[in-house]
């Protein structure tokens, strides 16, 4: 259990480092980090489904979209959510997204593996279609512009203040998800990931477990959406499109599925490459592609799996040395 403590400590230190260093860099880096952190909440929710429950979902962007559109519509149409009622909007975003996940989950959870992937993809596309065509509500492909960020005692229009707010939400989400996966419920999910049939035989209601995990992931997606709407200031069907779901999935895999923090690392790397490197060189897409391909080929457990693989290597070579010693003695 000591390694667990070390892991927790290193995460806390990393978070503290981010909280301290980033606000002192230039506004663009602050902006990118804020976006990466907001998106990381979605990526971590994908990781809960993928890494801990074994369900690869290609439709999580739908919940990001719900959270984002709820925020945008309330802000522009009803002038709601720009003061202290921001917190109510956060709650509403989470609730609506969870409700959608509850509806979609009824359709999706009955399937597994590739079929689950396909159903979630289709449902995600339904959400995109609604965002695109329901012009009177969502503004269609023009999107909805949020003109200002909320002000409640503190002005979120200030990039640094907003960074701290998003960071706060991110830290709380990380803590909640960590508690979830280390709880008995989380352990059951991991059991379902390993061998669902055995869990069923042991008497667990696996359908209900998966369904609840799906709703929880959707809820966090909604939270990510609310924050995402305010980072960009515009919500459009692009937020709900398939590539966004794929991005979240890829980031989770890149960082290491089954470790919440892996998703965050994956998000940071992809955002860094995509947004920062692309301003420096035009061939950034090759780099991103190479990173994905190499990770899948050589690091299927993702970047967070590197220490474990090093340890495995070491134990293997260690045993080989022992065998050599025995061989020389016995020969």
């Amino acid at each position, binding site marked *: 259990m000591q390694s667990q403590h070390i892991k927790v400590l290193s995460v806390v230190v990393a978070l503290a480092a981010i909280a301290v260093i980033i606000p002192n860099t230039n506004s663009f880096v602050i902006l990118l980090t804020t976006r990466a952190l907001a998106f990381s909440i979605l990526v971590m929710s994908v990781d809960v489904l993928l890494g801990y429950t074994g369900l690869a979902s290609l439709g999580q962007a739908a919940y990001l979209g719900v959270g984002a559109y709820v925020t945008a519509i309330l802000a522009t149409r009803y002038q709601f959510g720009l003061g202290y009622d921001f917190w109510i909007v956060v709650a509403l975003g989470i609730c609506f997204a969870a409700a959608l996940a509850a509806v979609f989950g009824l359709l999706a959870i009955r399937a597994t593996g590739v079929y689950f992937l396909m159903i979630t993809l289709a449902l995600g596309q339904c959400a995109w279609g609604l965002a695109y065509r329901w012009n009177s509500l969502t503004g269609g492909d023009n999107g909805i*512009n949020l003109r200002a960020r909320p002000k409640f005692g503190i002005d979120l229009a200030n990039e640094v203040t907003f960074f701290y707010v998003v960071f706060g939400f991110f830290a709380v989400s990380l803590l909640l998800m960590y508690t979830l996966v280390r709880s008995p419920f989380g352990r059951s999910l991991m059991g379902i990931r390993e061998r669902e049939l055995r869990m069923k035989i042991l008497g667990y209601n696996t359908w209900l477990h998966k369904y609840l995990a799906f709703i929880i992931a959707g809820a966090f997606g909604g939270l990510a959406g609310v924050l995402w709407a305010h980072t960009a200031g515009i919500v459009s069907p692009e937020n709900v499109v398939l590539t966004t779901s794929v991005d979240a999935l890829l980031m989770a895999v890149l960082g290491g599925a089954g470790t919440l923090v892996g998703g965050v690392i994956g998000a940071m790397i992809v955002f860094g490459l995509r947004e920062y490197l692309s301003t420096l060189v*035009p061939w950034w897409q090759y780099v991103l592609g190479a990173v994905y391909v190499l990770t899948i080929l050589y690091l299927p457990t993702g970047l967070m799996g590197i220490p474990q693989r090093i340890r495995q290597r070491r134990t293997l070579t260690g045993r080989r040395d022992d065998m050599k010693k025995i061989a020389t003695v016995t020969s």
Partner: protein
Amino acid sequence: MTITFLRRLGPPLLGGVVALSLTPAANAAEELRIGFVAPTTGIFAQVGKDMVDGFQLYLDDVNSDFGGAKVKFIVEDEQGKPDTAVTRAKKLALQDKVHLLVGGLLASSGYALAPVSTAEKTVYVVPVSAADDLTQRDLAKYPYLIRTGWSSSQPSHPFGQWACDQGYKKIAAVGADYAFGYEVIGGFQRAFEACGGQIIQKIWPPIGTKDFGPYIPTIRQDADAIFTLMVGPMSLQFPKQLAASGNKKPVIGGGTSYDEFVLPSMGDEVIGHVSALQYSAALETPKNEAFVKKYRAKFGKVPSYYSETNYTSAQMIHEVIKNNKGNFPGAEEFVKQLAALKLDTIRGPVSIDDMRNPVQNIYIKKVEKKKMFGYDKEELWNTVIKTYPNVSQFGQFNKDEFLKTPVYSRDFPPCKFCN
């Protein structure tokens, strides 16, 4: 005590060092930084390239010297996504400290970049994004926005009048199902019905439709003509399939349906089709001829309106900077001076109205196969058959009454004669 003090000071110091290394060095005076946001990757990459090429061609013509100021042209890729456009624009404004933001392709990008210009108090020059409301009902929200291109319904208003003059009484409209389609067809409907015509049908195939089989047979037989608004691959497929279905009715359309961006890939099925736009590469003026020849020699293709509008925008920016002896006069003053500009450009005389949208010629152009400008091959060109001078975004309509009505949408103007 000192150790904890150092430990506390460590992160900010480290951060400070990082920050210093990331901030660009202070720039020499008289450098004009122009930040250009266009999709250089993704499905609109080719259009983005045209936009950048047009602007760059002007910079090359004047050696990047705007009246004494050295132009630093920074291009950022928005990938056709509004969020990316916002991030890029913020990067240009905050990190590169550009004086001007230019660009944006889609209406969604225009709507995304406009608030950034207000928040960062940076001028935003719009050469392409044609969403009507940017310079109509939403204008007050964007004091630093100024359009040098066009508004979607601007060419449609005189075009509707032209259609009446041709004797058309009933027209069926087929347009891409999104805001740009609604605005182009809406403007045409308003103008056409104001002079006695009737739009008897409005069909909206979704964006990306490749097979118009479900739509073409439903076009009413009593229509005198068909009005189409297609974009991208739809504009290549629709005329082919319409011709294959045995259509004999005259076909007219929005400017982008037959613009030089898609025209080289089209075949003889579009000969005789008429459209309206503020530019045609076949405009027979010495300025345009020189531009087309120069552009074609450098980039191997006839310039589309995407290239021309960016070239002209660069020219207009140059004029303002020249009038200020190479200095950037500040955001508000720049917008004011650009809005007061009257210039003779490649597309003709351009001035800006009091809602910061251009007032310019609208050309009614017909696709013809011929040789032009001394080229030895017969090709498709948009021959200008009529010019409407001094057309504003409100066209022949009263501005205040126009603004009282809602923005053109799928249901506005309502289709009174569709039954």
